[in-house]
């Protein structure tokens, strides 16, 4: 039976069986291949998406549990055309990307964090990445870039030293 979910702001009708992992629906039915299915066990974080603004491992979440909810994937970040979100732009500026497989998940984990905590500290950023494996970069540039994006997002009056 078809169900409705909102994906990147658009209402979508999903044909897949309710127990199908969300990541498979995104990749195989909606052709949103940004989220990666790199371990299928919830340990690598490459499939991380936001469901009602919360980062979740889309490989573990049956699509049936997402019915009526709002899913955001890496494809929703930035603006149409060449625009990148401040977080994406910071990753580019810090030369953080290598093979790139982990970034769709890392960007969504960090986007979720920065929406909740625009003033996120380095410790909060590291902690938000606890479920995301990057095998190439050694993480530091990702963290530096996230801190830079966080600084750019801060309200001037809310700034803390």
């Amino acid at each position, binding site marked *: 039976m078809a169900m409705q979910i909102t994906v990147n702001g658009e209402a979508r009708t999903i044909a897949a069986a309710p127990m199908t992992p969300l990541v498979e629906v995104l990749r195989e039915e909606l052709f949103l*291949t940004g989220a990666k299915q*790199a371990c*299928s066990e919830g340990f690598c974080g490459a499939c991380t998406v936001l469901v009602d603004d919360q980062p979740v491992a889309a490989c573990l979440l049956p699509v049936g549990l997402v019915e009526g909810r709002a899913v955001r994937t890496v494809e929703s970040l930035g603006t149409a055309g060449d625009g990148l979100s401040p977080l994406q732009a910071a990753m580019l500026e810090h030369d953080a990307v290598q093979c790139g497989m982990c970034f769709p998940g890392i960007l969504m984990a960090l986007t979720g964090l920065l929406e909740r905590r625009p003033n996120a500290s380095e410790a909060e950023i590291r902690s938000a990445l606890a479920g995301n494996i990057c095998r190439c970069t050694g993480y530091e540039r990702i963290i530096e870039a996230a801190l830079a994006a966080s600084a750019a997002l801060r309200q001037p009056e809310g700034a803390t030293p």
Partner: protein
Amino acid sequence: MNAPMIGLDLPRRDAADKLRGQTRYTVDRARPGMLHAALRRAEVPAARIVRVDLEPARRMPGVRAVVGSADAPGRSGMVAADQTLFATGEVRFVGEPIAAVAADTAEQARAAAAAIVVELEPLPPVLTMAEALAPDAPLVHSGWRDYPQFVPGGQRAGNVAWEATVVRDDVAAAFARPDVTVVESTFRVGRQNQASLEPRACIATFEDGRVLIETSTQAPWTVRDTTASLLGMRPADVRVVVPAVGGGFGLKFAFGLEPFAALLARSSGRPVRLANSRRDEMLTALCRENAEIRIRSAVTASGEIVGREAVVLMDCGAYGGEQPFLASMTAHTLGGSYRLGSVRLVSRAIYTNTPPTGAFRACNGTYNVFALERHTDEICQAIGMDPVEFRKRNVIGDGSIGATGQVFEGNVLGPMLDRMTALRAKAPERPAASDGRLFGRATVIGTWFILVGPSAATVNLNPDGTATVVTSGVEIGSGAMVQALPQIVAHSLGLRPEDVVVRQADTDAAGYDVGVGGGRTTVSLGAASVAACQEVRTKLLQIASDMLEAAPDDLVLEAGHVQVVGAPQVRVSIAAVAQRAQGVTGPISGSGAFTAPGTASRPGCTAGHLVDALDLPVFAVHECEVAVDPETGQVEVLAYRVVQDVGRAINPRAIGGQIQGGVVQGLGYALHEEVTIGPDGKVRQQGFETYRVPLAQDVVPVEIDLYEGAPSIGPMGIKGAGEVPILNVAAAVACAVVNATGRPVREIPLTPPRVLELLDGAADELRLPHIKARWEDNVLPPAAAAG
């Protein structure tokens, strides 16, 4: 001269799409009418195959093709043809492919693979190197004598898949000297899984009697040639195209799933996709091999190393794969870095009934440098010399003779040690901690190399003034193809990097290339591209010479123009010259090639080596500070410093990214990553829950100093920078833990339980009785050799 394109921190051209999730890796690709494949794998480590019945699978729903050993009788191997695509006659490891199925859906393919009837008669497995070398051990390959051997000179016999030896000068005499201290150390290291986030995956399609393979590989030409050989096709009838690769680290330097997909595509007439799950990758990745090492040195009171001998056992698993090649590296990693009066080394690849091992970033080097540097610190302790002082006295320098007799050029390691001292002086002071933990620091050195070897490049100068570089180079994440190569070509032709288009790897379009590995891409493809640019430049200047009425020798390429030296206002755009060429000579292009120049070793001192001497050595100095918690055994890395010999840095920031990433992979290797094999022959770690790789909370920012100016045969003096960062990490961590605890580290990874054993004194001795006391007894007698 040209605007300095070399040394610029230019961004990656592939970053924006990777950040948008728009990059289509092989795992993201599909073709109309595509089938999905699954492999039936062995579940026991050793067995005689009584019967394989494919028929039940053929009757399953959705099944379009089923293939087995009869469909691919060919053999493959690097030095000896010891492997078939499917287990044939015998099963030799858990996970070995027995048959393959293609069906409409992946579920149907898996169900059909499970329906294949496999009848086995179990054989006693050989699961460790100690078992493999025991007298009367079962042979993993009882027919080893019958395998065609491709590489002469190397010895193999029984469970010794390959043996490489170095004997230079009189080691026995050195050890017999009355004025020497003899120090002996033994070490053992585990397997490390590359764990690239993109698993091995491919799609094969038959078109016009040829097979097109889109695959996640580092070595398209190896895939082309091996697939052709196993399918009985002409290599020219296999076309390999490589999209962006989601990490390789050496895993994808060998062929992978491609021949299975190609067979199924041929059999079904449909495109076939085959992709490994994470569990498949844990079970069958060509891990960095586990190794066992004994090293002995004879050292004088003043610290001169007059004699050194070592035995290195490398577990190649059930098939030789790349290990015979990697066995050659012991001469240069364990035999490297230090001046040695005399030396004899034996490096043996040992067959076991375990999954085959293979290449992983700084293959062979990580554990040999760990062993060598720990041993060096034990020498220092034995003779009472400061470890850094000892290294400064003994490092190879200009004119030094290496283990295989090669003459090294330039003083590099010595000045790099001084630079490490300076780098440490710049580090912020940390307040002395008094939390009960044990603090330690160590400085270690290492020798690595760039795997040069054949590369081809074509550069087309387009009428719009851009250039297209056509090579078989693959972007695996290092940035070599998206940063370094366009910077080199732009520099050579006076263009902007954004005016250089880099063609995706395609064996139909570009000439032969060894593959992306061994730190070679920037050097070898860079050199081939520079040579191609020379031809383009010559043709360009010839035509511009007519247009500007100036001799070609008086012209330079600068900022997209050809201009007259000393009269920069007299110029014409490169685009205009390229357009003019269309009607004069036809389009301008150039081709270039590069290969290993061949560096001399001393004749007769090596046997079984595929690399006798290093054409392009690379050096590294690492320093690590640790805190060890004596209650929990937890090792925390507090600071990490790297001085790396890069020749000349094309993109220093990109190199910094390689160093940070490589060091962190090394920290995983040193502290917690280990693939182990159970008594049932199965890999115990089946996913990231049990195979723990470093996470964001585990790491520190690496303090980096790039050492430029060392001699290099690379274009513009460059060296590869991506492979070496992992080389010294296990050594640095282990030596720092020894410094902190006063206990001898003999095994890595230094997991908390192992560190607690260490602190209890339960790990002081590591006995390896299968390494014989006399060095000569660890070497095959010449009579044992095949053919």
